[in-house]
Protein backbone atom coordinates (compact mmCIF):
# COMPACT_ATOMS: atom_id res chain seq x y z
CA UNK A 1 0.00 0.00 0.00
CA UNK A 2 1.15 3.51 -0.77
CA UNK A 3 0.00 5.48 2.25
CA UNK A 4 0.42 8.78 0.44
CA UNK A 5 -1.76 8.06 -2.57
CA UNK A 6 -5.55 7.76 -2.45
CA UNK A 7 -7.03 4.81 -4.32
CA UNK A 8 -9.96 5.67 -6.57
CA UNK A 9 -13.37 4.85 -5.18
CA UNK A 10 -16.93 5.36 -6.36
CA UNK A 11 -19.83 6.21 -4.11
CA UNK A 12 -22.40 3.49 -4.82
CA UNK A 13 -25.06 4.49 -2.34
CA UNK A 14 -25.89 7.35 -0.02
CA UNK A 15 -28.57 6.59 2.53
CA UNK A 16 -29.75 9.44 4.75
CA UNK A 17 -29.81 8.08 8.30
CA UNK A 18 -30.86 11.32 9.96
CA UNK A 19 -31.35 14.90 8.87
CA UNK A 20 -27.62 15.47 8.87
CA UNK A 21 -26.03 12.03 8.76
CA UNK A 22 -25.52 9.81 5.74
CA UNK A 23 -24.37 6.24 5.38
CA UNK A 24 -22.19 6.07 2.27
CA UNK A 25 -21.14 2.90 0.55
CA UNK A 26 -18.03 3.21 -1.57
CA UNK A 27 -16.65 0.67 -3.95
CA UNK A 28 -12.94 0.41 -4.51
CA UNK A 29 -10.40 -2.15 -5.60
CA UNK A 30 -11.32 -5.19 -3.51
CA UNK A 31 -7.68 -6.16 -3.26
CA UNK A 32 -6.56 -2.85 -1.81
CA UNK A 33 -5.70 -2.84 1.89
CA UNK A 34 -8.10 0.03 2.48
CA UNK A 35 -11.02 -2.28 1.69
CA UNK A 36 -9.62 -5.71 2.44
CA UNK A 37 -7.51 -5.47 5.55
CA UNK A 38 -8.91 -3.24 8.26
CA UNK A 39 -9.99 -3.67 11.85
CA UNK A 40 -12.98 -2.07 13.54
CA UNK A 41 -11.81 1.18 15.12
CA UNK A 42 -9.31 1.92 12.38
CA UNK A 43 -9.93 4.83 10.05
CA UNK A 44 -9.33 5.81 6.47
CA UNK A 45 -8.71 9.15 4.80
CA UNK A 46 -11.59 9.98 2.50
CA UNK A 47 -10.91 12.38 -0.36
CA UNK A 48 -13.52 14.37 -2.18
CA UNK A 49 -11.70 15.69 -5.24
CA UNK A 50 -11.48 19.46 -5.30
CA UNK A 51 -12.69 19.75 -1.73
CA UNK A 52 -10.31 17.90 0.56
CA UNK A 53 -9.64 14.91 2.71
CA UNK A 54 -10.95 13.87 6.13
CA UNK A 55 -10.31 10.98 8.51
CA UNK A 56 -13.38 8.75 8.87
CA UNK A 57 -13.76 5.60 10.97
CA UNK A 58 -14.87 2.45 9.26
CA UNK A 59 -18.54 1.88 9.96
CA UNK A 60 -18.94 -1.50 8.29
CA UNK A 61 -16.88 -4.62 8.28
CA UNK A 62 -14.84 -6.52 5.71
CA UNK A 63 -16.79 -7.26 2.56
CA UNK A 64 -16.03 -9.62 -0.28
CA UNK A 65 -16.53 -7.08 -3.05
CA UNK A 66 -14.39 -4.17 -1.89
CA UNK A 67 -17.24 -2.05 -0.60
CA UNK A 68 -16.67 0.24 2.37
CA UNK A 69 -19.36 1.73 4.60
CA UNK A 70 -18.80 5.16 6.10
CA UNK A 71 -21.24 6.99 8.31
CA UNK A 72 -20.71 10.72 7.95
CA UNK A 73 -22.22 13.62 9.82
CA UNK A 74 -22.23 16.76 7.71
CA UNK A 75 -20.56 19.24 10.04
CA UNK A 76 -17.23 20.23 8.48
CA UNK A 77 -16.12 21.57 5.13
CA UNK A 78 -15.55 18.25 3.39
CA UNK A 79 -18.39 16.42 5.12
CA UNK A 80 -20.82 19.21 4.23
CA UNK A 81 -19.78 19.01 0.59
CA UNK A 82 -20.40 15.27 0.81
CA UNK A 83 -24.03 15.96 1.60
CA UNK A 84 -24.69 16.53 -2.06
CA UNK A 85 -22.62 13.56 -3.24
CA UNK A 86 -24.78 11.16 -5.22
CA UNK A 87 -24.19 7.55 -6.30
CA UNK A 88 -21.65 7.52 -9.09
CA UNK A 89 -19.58 10.34 -7.61
CA UNK A 90 -15.87 9.67 -7.45
CA UNK A 91 -13.84 9.76 -4.29
CA UNK A 92 -10.46 8.62 -3.05
CA UNK A 93 -9.51 6.49 -0.07
CA UNK A 94 -6.22 5.94 1.77
CA UNK A 95 -5.74 3.54 4.61
CA UNK A 96 -6.37 1.72 6.80
CA UNK A 97 -4.72 3.80 9.51
CA UNK A 98 -4.41 3.43 13.26
CA UNK A 99 -4.68 0.41 15.48
CA UNK A 100 -8.36 -0.53 15.87
CA UNK A 101 -10.07 -2.31 18.74
CA UNK A 102 -8.04 -5.21 20.21
CA UNK A 103 -10.20 -8.11 18.98
CA UNK A 104 -7.71 -10.68 20.24
CA UNK A 105 -8.04 -9.31 23.77
CA UNK A 106 -11.83 -9.47 23.41
CA UNK A 107 -11.85 -13.18 22.56
CA UNK A 108 -13.68 -15.10 25.29
CA UNK A 109 -14.64 -11.88 27.07
CA UNK A 110 -17.91 -10.09 27.72
CA UNK A 111 -18.11 -6.87 25.74
CA UNK A 112 -19.66 -3.66 26.95
CA UNK A 113 -19.99 -1.25 24.04
CA UNK A 114 -20.91 2.32 24.88
CA UNK A 115 -21.76 4.68 22.03
CA UNK A 116 -22.71 8.34 22.19
CA UNK A 117 -24.14 10.02 19.11
CA UNK A 118 -22.01 9.50 16.04
CA UNK A 119 -19.73 7.27 18.14
CA UNK A 120 -22.10 4.52 17.03
CA UNK A 121 -20.37 4.51 13.63
CA UNK A 122 -17.06 2.86 14.63
CA UNK A 123 -18.84 0.73 17.23
CA UNK A 124 -21.14 -0.60 14.51
CA UNK A 125 -18.02 -1.84 12.75
CA UNK A 126 -17.00 -3.54 15.99
CA UNK A 127 -20.51 -5.00 16.46
CA UNK A 128 -20.45 -6.44 12.95
CA UNK A 129 -17.04 -7.98 13.58
CA UNK A 130 -18.24 -9.51 16.83
CA UNK A 131 -21.38 -10.81 15.16
CA UNK A 132 -19.35 -12.36 12.33
CA UNK A 133 -17.67 -14.62 14.89
CA UNK A 134 -20.23 -14.45 17.63
CA UNK A 135 -19.15 -17.75 19.22
CA UNK A 136 -15.76 -16.30 20.12
CA UNK A 137 -17.19 -13.72 22.52
CA UNK A 138 -19.31 -13.80 25.68
CA UNK A 139 -22.12 -11.38 26.45
CA UNK A 140 -22.27 -8.36 24.19
CA UNK A 141 -24.07 -5.37 25.64
CA UNK A 142 -24.56 -2.10 23.78
CA UNK A 143 -25.43 1.10 25.61
CA UNK A 144 -26.30 3.76 23.09
CA UNK A 145 -27.37 7.33 23.67
CA UNK A 146 -28.16 10.19 21.37
CA UNK A 147 -29.49 13.69 21.70
CA UNK A 148 -32.94 12.81 20.42
CA UNK A 149 -34.77 9.83 19.00
CA UNK A 150 -34.27 11.02 15.45
CA UNK A 151 -30.51 10.95 15.94
CA UNK A 152 -30.31 7.27 16.92
CA UNK A 153 -28.49 5.49 14.10
CA UNK A 154 -28.97 1.93 12.81
CA UNK A 155 -31.93 1.40 15.15
CA UNK A 156 -33.59 -1.33 13.08
CA UNK A 157 -30.33 -3.21 12.72
CA UNK A 158 -29.58 -2.99 16.42
CA UNK A 159 -33.05 -4.14 17.39
CA UNK A 160 -32.70 -7.04 14.99
CA UNK A 161 -29.42 -8.03 16.66
CA UNK A 162 -31.14 -7.83 20.01
CA UNK A 163 -34.08 -9.87 18.80
CA UNK A 164 -31.92 -12.72 17.63
CA UNK A 165 -30.02 -12.72 20.91
CA UNK A 166 -26.70 -11.46 19.55
CA UNK A 167 -26.62 -8.41 21.81
CA UNK A 168 -28.28 -6.84 24.80
CA UNK A 169 -29.36 -3.30 24.06
CA UNK A 170 -30.05 -0.24 26.18
CA UNK A 171 -31.00 3.03 24.51
CA UNK A 172 -31.28 6.55 25.81
CA UNK A 173 -32.09 9.95 24.41
CA UNK A 174 -31.40 13.28 26.11
CA UNK A 175 -34.80 14.61 25.20
CA UNK A 176 -37.90 13.64 23.34
CA UNK A 177 -39.07 15.63 20.34
CA UNK A 178 -42.75 16.48 20.30
CA UNK A 179 -43.23 14.98 16.86
CA UNK A 180 -41.28 11.77 17.39
CA UNK A 181 -42.77 8.31 17.63
CA UNK A 182 -42.68 6.79 21.09
CA UNK A 183 -39.69 4.50 21.66
CA UNK A 184 -40.73 1.92 24.23
CA UNK A 185 -37.21 0.50 24.58
CA UNK A 186 -35.54 3.87 25.04
CA UNK A 187 -35.02 5.84 28.23
CA UNK A 188 -34.97 9.60 28.46
CA UNK A 189 -31.66 10.01 30.19
CA UNK A 190 -28.07 10.93 29.59
CA UNK A 191 -25.86 8.15 28.28
CA UNK A 192 -23.92 7.48 31.53
CA UNK A 193 -27.23 6.73 33.26
CA UNK A 194 -27.52 3.56 31.14
CA UNK A 195 -24.68 2.13 33.21
CA UNK A 196 -26.81 2.25 36.37
CA UNK A 197 -27.91 -1.15 37.62
CA UNK A 198 -25.96 -2.84 34.89
CA UNK A 199 -24.71 -6.21 36.01
CA UNK A 200 -21.42 -7.26 34.56
CA UNK A 201 -18.70 -9.66 35.59
CA UNK A 202 -15.85 -7.13 35.84
CA UNK A 203 -13.19 -9.81 35.66
CA UNK A 204 -14.28 -10.83 32.18
CA UNK A 205 -15.61 -7.56 30.80
CA UNK A 206 -13.97 -5.26 28.27
CA UNK A 207 -15.51 -1.86 27.57
CA UNK A 208 -15.29 -0.20 24.14
CA UNK A 209 -16.34 3.43 24.22
CA UNK A 210 -16.88 5.93 21.46
CA UNK A 211 -18.68 9.22 21.72
CA UNK A 212 -18.24 12.93 22.12
CA UNK A 213 -15.27 13.71 24.40
CA UNK A 214 -17.53 15.50 26.88
CA UNK A 215 -19.05 12.22 28.10
CA UNK A 216 -15.78 10.26 28.35
CA UNK A 217 -14.96 11.14 31.96
CA UNK A 218 -18.44 10.06 33.05
CA UNK A 219 -18.31 6.82 31.07
CA UNK A 220 -14.87 5.96 32.42
CA UNK A 221 -16.13 6.67 35.95
CA UNK A 222 -19.09 4.40 35.25
CA UNK A 223 -16.83 1.62 34.00
CA UNK A 224 -14.74 2.02 37.15
CA UNK A 225 -17.87 1.71 39.26
CA UNK A 226 -18.64 -1.54 37.47
CA UNK A 227 -15.14 -2.69 38.37
CA UNK A 228 -13.67 -2.83 34.85
CA UNK A 229 -9.88 -2.43 34.92
CA UNK A 230 -8.23 0.51 33.12
CA UNK A 231 -6.43 -1.84 30.71
CA UNK A 232 -9.79 -3.15 29.50
CA UNK A 233 -11.52 0.18 29.01
CA UNK A 234 -10.94 1.27 25.42
CA UNK A 235 -11.78 4.69 24.08
CA UNK A 236 -11.66 5.91 20.52
CA UNK A 237 -10.30 9.45 20.22
CA UNK A 238 -10.91 12.04 17.57
CA UNK A 239 -8.10 14.36 16.50
CA UNK A 240 -7.17 16.46 13.49
CA UNK A 241 -5.35 13.66 11.69
CA UNK A 242 -4.17 15.07 8.39
CA UNK A 243 -1.60 12.57 7.17
CA UNK A 244 -2.50 9.33 8.96
CA UNK A 245 1.12 8.20 9.21
CA UNK A 246 2.50 10.16 12.14
CA UNK A 247 4.08 13.09 10.32
CA UNK A 248 1.83 16.13 10.19
CA UNK A 249 2.06 16.68 13.95
CA UNK A 250 -1.60 17.46 14.67
CA UNK A 251 -2.75 14.51 16.71
CA UNK A 252 -0.35 14.04 19.63
CA UNK A 253 -1.95 12.86 22.85
CA UNK A 254 0.81 13.00 25.43
CA UNK A 255 3.59 10.99 23.82
CA UNK A 256 1.22 9.08 21.55
CA UNK A 257 0.17 9.95 18.04
CA UNK A 258 -3.52 9.33 17.64
CA UNK A 259 -3.21 8.32 13.97
CA UNK A 260 -0.57 5.64 14.58
CA UNK A 261 -0.79 4.62 18.24
CA UNK A 262 -4.59 5.15 18.33
CA UNK A 263 -7.25 6.17 17.70
CA UNK A 264 -8.22 3.41 20.15
CA UNK A 265 -6.45 3.71 23.49
CA UNK A 266 -6.93 1.92 26.77
CA UNK A 267 -7.72 4.17 29.68
CA UNK A 268 -4.54 2.85 31.30
CA UNK A 269 -2.64 4.58 28.48
CA UNK A 270 -4.58 7.83 28.69
CA UNK A 271 -4.94 8.33 32.44
CA UNK A 272 -3.05 11.44 33.53
CA UNK A 273 -2.51 12.85 30.04
CA UNK A 274 -3.77 16.40 29.83
CA UNK A 275 -6.59 16.89 27.35
CA UNK A 276 -6.62 13.24 26.32
CA UNK A 277 -10.35 12.96 26.89
CA UNK A 278 -11.00 16.38 25.40
Amino acid at each position, binding site marked *: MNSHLPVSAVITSAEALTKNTTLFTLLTDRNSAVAAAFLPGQFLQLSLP*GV*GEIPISYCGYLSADGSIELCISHVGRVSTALKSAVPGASAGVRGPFGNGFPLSMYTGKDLLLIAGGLGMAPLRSLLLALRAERHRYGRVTLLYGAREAGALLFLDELREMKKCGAIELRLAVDRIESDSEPLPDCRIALLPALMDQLEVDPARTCAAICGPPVVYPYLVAGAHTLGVADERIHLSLER*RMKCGIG*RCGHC*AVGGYLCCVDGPVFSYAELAGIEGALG
Partner: protein
Amino acid sequence: MAATFIATHNLEILLDHLRQHGDLYGPVRGDDGAVRFAPLLPGTAPDLAALRTLLPAKKYLLHPCETILNFTADAGYQLPIEVVSPSILFGLHPCDLAGISYLDQLFLGDEPDPLYAARRSSLTLIGISCTPDDYCTCYRTPSPLAAQSDLFLQSVDGGFVVTSGSPRGDELVESVKNILVECDLSVPEDTRRFFCAPLSQRHLPETDETDPEWQELADGCLGCGACSVCCPTCACFDVLEFGGLDDVSALRVRRWDNCLFKSHSQVAGGVSFCKDRAERFRYRYRHKYRGFGALEGVPACVGCGRCRVVCPAGLDLRPLAERLDGGAP
Protein backbone atom coordinates in the same frame (compact mmCIF):
# COMPACT_ATOMS: atom_id res chain seq x y z
CA MET B 1 47.26 15.85 14.20
CA ALA B 2 47.20 15.07 10.49
CA ALA B 3 44.59 17.24 8.82
CA THR B 4 43.34 18.31 5.42
CA PHE B 5 43.52 22.09 5.21
CA ILE B 6 41.99 24.62 2.85
CA ALA B 7 43.18 28.22 3.00
CA THR B 8 40.48 30.90 3.28
CA HIS B 9 41.63 32.48 0.02
CA ASN B 10 40.91 29.17 -1.76
CA LEU B 11 37.31 29.02 -0.53
CA GLU B 12 36.00 30.76 -3.65
CA ILE B 13 37.65 28.06 -5.77
CA LEU B 14 35.92 25.41 -3.66
CA LEU B 15 32.57 27.18 -4.10
CA ASP B 16 33.13 27.44 -7.86
CA HIS B 17 33.83 23.75 -7.94
CA LEU B 18 30.69 23.00 -5.91
CA ARG B 19 28.61 25.06 -8.36
CA GLN B 20 29.54 22.55 -11.03
CA HIS B 21 27.99 19.79 -8.93
CA GLY B 22 24.60 21.40 -8.45
CA ASP B 23 22.67 24.42 -7.24
CA LEU B 24 24.67 25.96 -4.42
CA TYR B 25 23.00 27.59 -1.43
CA GLY B 26 24.51 29.20 1.64
CA PRO B 27 24.03 31.95 4.22
CA VAL B 28 23.75 35.33 2.49
CA ARG B 29 23.21 38.67 4.20
CA GLY B 30 20.53 40.66 2.43
CA ASP B 31 20.18 44.40 2.07
CA ASP B 32 17.77 44.29 5.00
CA GLY B 33 20.52 42.93 7.23
CA ALA B 34 18.88 39.54 7.62
CA VAL B 35 20.87 36.40 6.85
CA ARG B 36 19.08 33.76 4.80
CA PHE B 37 19.99 30.56 3.09
CA ALA B 38 19.93 31.71 -0.53
CA PRO B 39 21.55 30.86 -3.87
CA LEU B 40 25.31 31.36 -3.72
CA LEU B 41 25.70 32.68 -7.25
CA PRO B 42 29.17 33.36 -8.62
CA GLY B 43 30.43 36.53 -6.97
CA THR B 44 28.17 36.09 -3.94
CA ALA B 45 30.18 35.47 -0.81
CA PRO B 46 28.59 33.42 1.96
CA ASP B 47 28.34 35.18 5.30
CA LEU B 48 30.38 32.77 7.38
CA ALA B 49 30.37 35.02 10.45
CA ALA B 50 26.59 34.87 10.82
CA LEU B 51 25.45 32.41 13.47
CA ARG B 52 21.92 31.75 12.35
CA THR B 53 19.85 32.29 9.25
CA LEU B 54 16.31 33.67 9.52
CA LEU B 55 14.82 30.34 8.41
CA PRO B 56 16.61 27.05 8.85
CA ALA B 57 17.52 24.78 5.96
CA LYS B 58 14.28 22.81 6.38
CA LYS B 59 12.75 25.08 3.74
CA TYR B 60 14.70 23.19 1.07
CA LEU B 61 13.42 19.80 2.18
CA LEU B 62 9.91 20.63 3.28
CA HIS B 63 8.85 23.58 1.18
CA PRO B 64 6.69 26.14 2.99
CA CYS B 65 3.90 25.29 0.55
CA GLU B 66 3.99 22.53 -2.02
CA THR B 67 1.76 20.32 -4.14
CA ILE B 68 1.61 16.75 -2.86
CA LEU B 69 -1.11 15.36 -5.13
CA ASN B 70 -2.70 16.21 -8.46
CA PHE B 71 -6.19 15.08 -9.35
CA THR B 72 -7.66 14.66 -12.80
CA ALA B 73 -10.92 12.95 -13.65
CA ASP B 74 -9.11 10.45 -15.87
CA ALA B 75 -6.18 9.49 -13.70
CA GLY B 76 -7.57 10.12 -10.23
CA TYR B 77 -5.04 11.28 -7.64
CA GLN B 78 -1.41 11.13 -8.73
CA LEU B 79 1.81 11.93 -6.92
CA PRO B 80 3.48 14.96 -8.51
CA ILE B 81 6.41 14.32 -10.78
CA GLU B 82 9.09 16.65 -9.55
CA VAL B 83 12.44 16.92 -11.22
CA VAL B 84 14.88 17.42 -8.40
CA SER B 85 18.24 18.80 -9.38
CA PRO B 86 21.34 18.16 -7.27
CA SER B 87 21.73 20.84 -4.62
CA ILE B 88 24.45 21.71 -2.17
CA LEU B 89 23.85 23.46 1.12
CA PHE B 90 26.99 25.22 2.25
CA GLY B 91 27.64 26.69 5.67
CA LEU B 92 25.38 24.62 7.88
CA HIS B 93 26.19 24.76 11.57
CA PRO B 94 26.07 21.59 13.67
CA CYS B 95 22.61 22.54 15.00
CA ASP B 96 21.37 22.95 11.40
CA LEU B 97 22.75 19.51 10.59
CA ALA B 98 21.11 18.00 13.66
CA GLY B 99 17.83 19.61 12.59
CA ILE B 100 18.08 17.89 9.21
CA SER B 101 18.89 14.64 10.99
CA TYR B 102 15.64 15.04 12.95
CA LEU B 103 13.63 15.67 9.77
CA ASP B 104 15.29 12.63 8.19
CA GLN B 105 14.04 10.47 11.04
CA LEU B 106 10.56 11.90 10.65
CA PHE B 107 10.23 11.79 6.86
CA LEU B 108 12.45 8.89 5.83
CA GLY B 109 11.04 6.30 8.22
CA ASP B 110 9.00 3.25 7.25
CA GLU B 111 7.16 4.91 4.43
CA PRO B 112 9.48 7.63 3.13
CA ASP B 113 7.77 10.82 2.10
CA PRO B 114 8.22 10.88 -1.70
CA LEU B 115 9.03 14.58 -2.05
CA TYR B 116 11.27 14.76 0.98
CA ALA B 117 13.13 11.60 0.00
CA ALA B 118 13.74 12.83 -3.54
CA ARG B 119 15.11 16.16 -2.37
CA ARG B 120 17.14 14.69 0.45
CA SER B 121 18.90 12.18 -1.77
CA SER B 122 20.00 14.91 -4.14
CA LEU B 123 21.21 17.17 -1.37
CA THR B 124 24.84 17.52 -0.32
CA LEU B 125 25.41 18.99 3.13
CA ILE B 126 28.50 21.01 3.91
CA GLY B 127 28.85 22.01 7.52
CA ILE B 128 30.97 24.67 9.11
CA SER B 129 32.07 25.21 12.70
CA CYS B 130 30.77 28.06 14.83
CA THR B 131 31.16 29.76 18.17
CA PRO B 132 27.93 29.81 20.17
CA ASP B 133 26.52 33.14 21.30
CA ASP B 134 24.17 33.96 24.18
CA TYR B 135 21.12 32.71 22.29
CA CYS B 136 22.66 29.32 21.49
CA THR B 137 21.96 26.44 23.85
CA CYS B 138 23.52 23.50 22.02
CA TYR B 139 26.09 23.18 24.78
CA ARG B 140 23.51 23.15 27.58
CA THR B 141 21.70 19.91 26.73
CA PRO B 142 23.55 17.41 24.58
CA SER B 143 21.27 16.24 21.77
CA PRO B 144 20.93 12.63 20.57
CA LEU B 145 20.58 13.95 17.00
CA ALA B 146 23.52 13.51 14.66
CA ALA B 147 25.28 16.56 13.24
CA GLN B 148 26.15 14.58 10.14
CA SER B 149 27.38 16.18 6.94
CA ASP B 150 29.05 15.16 3.70
CA LEU B 151 31.83 17.65 4.29
CA PHE B 152 32.67 19.66 7.37
CA LEU B 153 34.84 22.77 7.51
CA GLN B 154 36.35 23.54 10.83
CA SER B 155 37.68 27.00 11.31
CA VAL B 156 41.38 27.27 12.17
CA ASP B 157 43.93 30.04 11.68
CA GLY B 158 44.05 31.07 8.02
CA GLY B 159 41.47 28.57 6.80
CA PHE B 160 39.58 25.42 7.56
CA VAL B 161 40.24 21.80 8.33
CA VAL B 162 38.16 19.71 5.92
CA THR B 163 36.72 16.35 6.93
CA SER B 164 34.50 14.08 4.93
CA GLY B 165 31.49 12.37 6.47
CA SER B 166 30.26 10.28 3.56
CA PRO B 167 31.28 8.70 0.24
CA ARG B 168 29.94 11.83 -1.46
CA GLY B 169 32.22 13.89 0.75
CA ASP B 170 35.15 11.63 -0.12
CA GLU B 171 34.50 12.27 -3.81
CA LEU B 172 34.37 16.02 -3.26
CA VAL B 173 37.65 15.97 -1.31
CA GLU B 174 39.23 13.95 -4.09
CA SER B 175 37.99 16.33 -6.75
CA VAL B 176 39.39 19.47 -5.09
CA LYS B 177 42.67 17.94 -4.03
CA ASN B 178 44.63 20.64 -5.80
CA ILE B 179 43.53 23.29 -3.30
CA LEU B 180 43.83 21.09 -0.21
CA VAL B 181 46.97 20.73 1.83
CA GLU B 182 47.79 17.78 4.06
CA CYS B 183 49.49 19.07 7.18
CA ASP B 184 49.89 18.70 10.90
CA LEU B 185 47.61 21.00 12.84
CA SER B 186 46.22 21.31 16.28
CA VAL B 187 42.46 21.12 15.69
CA PRO B 188 40.18 22.50 18.40
CA GLU B 189 36.95 20.74 19.34
CA ASP B 190 33.86 22.14 17.66
CA THR B 191 30.17 22.23 18.55
CA ARG B 192 29.49 18.90 16.82
CA ARG B 193 30.50 17.34 20.10
CA PHE B 194 27.19 18.46 21.65
CA PHE B 195 25.30 16.23 19.24
CA CYS B 196 24.97 12.49 18.80
CA ALA B 197 24.90 12.13 22.59
CA PRO B 198 23.59 8.82 23.94
CA LEU B 199 19.82 9.01 24.30
CA SER B 200 18.91 9.16 27.94
CA GLN B 201 16.32 6.61 28.95
CA ARG B 202 15.12 8.53 31.97
CA HIS B 203 11.42 8.55 32.64
CA LEU B 204 9.92 11.99 32.83
CA PRO B 205 6.64 12.51 34.65
CA GLU B 206 3.62 13.87 32.83
CA THR B 207 3.80 17.65 32.57
CA ASP B 208 2.35 19.47 35.53
CA GLU B 209 -0.31 21.62 33.95
CA THR B 210 -0.96 23.51 37.19
CA ASP B 211 2.52 25.06 37.17
CA PRO B 212 1.81 28.82 37.08
CA GLU B 213 4.67 29.43 34.67
CA TRP B 214 2.62 27.99 31.80
CA GLN B 215 0.06 30.71 32.24
CA GLU B 216 2.79 33.34 32.56
CA LEU B 217 4.21 32.26 29.21
CA ALA B 218 0.74 32.14 27.67
CA ASP B 219 -0.12 35.60 28.97
CA GLY B 220 2.97 37.08 27.32
CA CYS B 221 2.57 35.21 24.02
CA LEU B 222 1.19 37.12 21.04
CA GLY B 223 0.37 33.86 19.22
CA CYS B 224 2.34 34.88 16.14
CA GLY B 225 3.92 31.44 15.74
CA ALA B 226 7.31 32.82 14.66
CA CYS B 227 9.10 30.45 17.06
CA SER B 228 7.71 27.50 15.17
CA VAL B 229 8.29 28.88 11.67
CA CYS B 230 11.99 29.40 12.36
CA CYS B 231 12.52 26.12 14.23
CA PRO B 232 14.72 23.60 12.37
CA THR B 233 12.65 20.69 13.68
CA CYS B 234 9.12 22.12 13.50
CA ALA B 235 7.60 20.18 10.63
CA CYS B 236 3.86 20.24 11.32
CA PHE B 237 2.01 20.66 8.07
CA ASP B 238 -1.57 21.34 7.13
CA VAL B 239 -3.12 19.82 4.03
CA LEU B 240 -5.43 21.78 1.74
CA GLU B 241 -7.13 21.01 -1.52
CA PHE B 242 -7.96 23.41 -4.32
CA GLY B 243 -10.41 22.59 -7.08
CA GLY B 244 -9.49 23.71 -10.58
CA LEU B 245 -11.57 26.21 -12.53
CA ASP B 246 -12.44 23.38 -14.94
CA ASP B 247 -14.27 21.67 -12.07
CA VAL B 248 -12.64 18.31 -12.88
CA SER B 249 -9.07 18.80 -11.73
CA ALA B 250 -7.65 19.60 -8.34
CA LEU B 251 -4.42 19.92 -6.51
CA ARG B 252 -3.60 19.11 -2.93
CA VAL B 253 -0.97 21.09 -1.15
CA ARG B 254 0.67 20.89 2.21
CA ARG B 255 1.95 23.96 3.96
CA TRP B 256 3.73 24.60 7.21
CA ASP B 257 1.36 24.63 10.15
CA ASN B 258 1.90 25.95 13.62
CA CYS B 259 1.04 24.42 16.99
CA LEU B 260 0.69 27.89 18.51
CA PHE B 261 -2.40 28.43 16.35
CA LYS B 262 -5.80 27.41 17.67
CA SER B 263 -6.73 25.87 14.33
CA HIS B 264 -3.89 23.36 14.70
CA SER B 265 -5.96 21.10 16.94
CA GLN B 266 -9.42 21.99 15.72
CA VAL B 267 -11.69 19.33 14.23
CA ALA B 268 -14.99 19.53 12.37
CA GLY B 269 -17.67 21.23 14.39
CA GLY B 270 -15.14 23.61 15.97
CA VAL B 271 -14.00 21.31 18.80
CA SER B 272 -10.43 22.16 19.75
CA PHE B 273 -8.16 19.85 21.71
CA CYS B 274 -5.79 22.68 22.72
CA LYS B 275 -8.28 25.34 23.62
CA ASP B 276 -6.10 27.83 25.42
CA ARG B 277 -2.64 29.16 24.78
CA ALA B 278 -1.11 27.51 27.84
CA GLU B 279 -2.24 24.13 26.51
CA ARG B 280 -0.67 24.93 23.16
CA PHE B 281 2.58 25.83 24.92
CA ARG B 282 2.53 22.46 26.63
CA TYR B 283 1.94 20.76 23.25
CA ARG B 284 4.96 22.59 21.90
CA TYR B 285 7.03 21.71 24.96
CA ARG B 286 6.07 18.03 24.57
CA HIS B 287 7.33 18.03 21.00
CA LYS B 288 10.49 20.08 21.51
CA TYR B 289 11.73 18.51 24.73
CA ARG B 290 10.17 15.05 25.02
CA GLY B 291 9.03 14.05 21.56
CA PHE B 292 6.08 11.99 20.50
CA GLY B 293 5.20 9.07 18.27
CA ALA B 294 8.13 7.23 16.77
CA LEU B 295 10.40 10.00 18.02
CA GLU B 296 9.20 9.92 21.61
CA GLY B 297 12.20 10.39 23.87
CA VAL B 298 14.14 12.30 21.22
CA PRO B 299 14.22 15.96 22.24
CA ALA B 300 13.71 17.99 19.08
CA CYS B 301 15.40 21.19 20.28
CA VAL B 302 18.82 21.55 18.68
CA GLY B 303 19.67 24.71 20.59
CA CYS B 304 19.99 27.04 17.58
CA GLY B 305 18.39 29.92 19.47
CA ARG B 306 16.20 31.10 16.59
CA CYS B 307 12.98 31.00 18.63
CA ARG B 308 14.50 33.19 21.31
CA VAL B 309 15.84 35.66 18.76
CA VAL B 310 12.57 36.07 16.85
CA CYS B 311 10.02 36.13 19.67
CA PRO B 312 8.57 39.67 19.64
CA ALA B 313 7.55 39.25 23.28
CA GLY B 314 10.97 38.00 24.38
CA LEU B 315 9.59 34.67 25.60
CA ASP B 316 11.72 31.63 26.19
CA LEU B 317 10.28 28.19 26.82
CA ARG B 318 13.61 26.68 27.63
CA PRO B 319 14.11 27.66 31.31
CA LEU B 320 10.75 26.10 32.18
CA ALA B 321 11.59 23.02 30.11
CA GLU B 322 14.90 22.65 31.88
CA ARG B 323 13.27 23.00 35.27
CA LEU B 324 10.56 20.44 34.42
CA ASP B 325 13.06 17.99 33.08
CA GLY B 326 15.32 18.37 36.08
CA GLY B 327 18.13 20.16 34.29
CA ALA B 328 20.42 18.68 31.69
CA PRO B 329 19.97 14.94 31.10
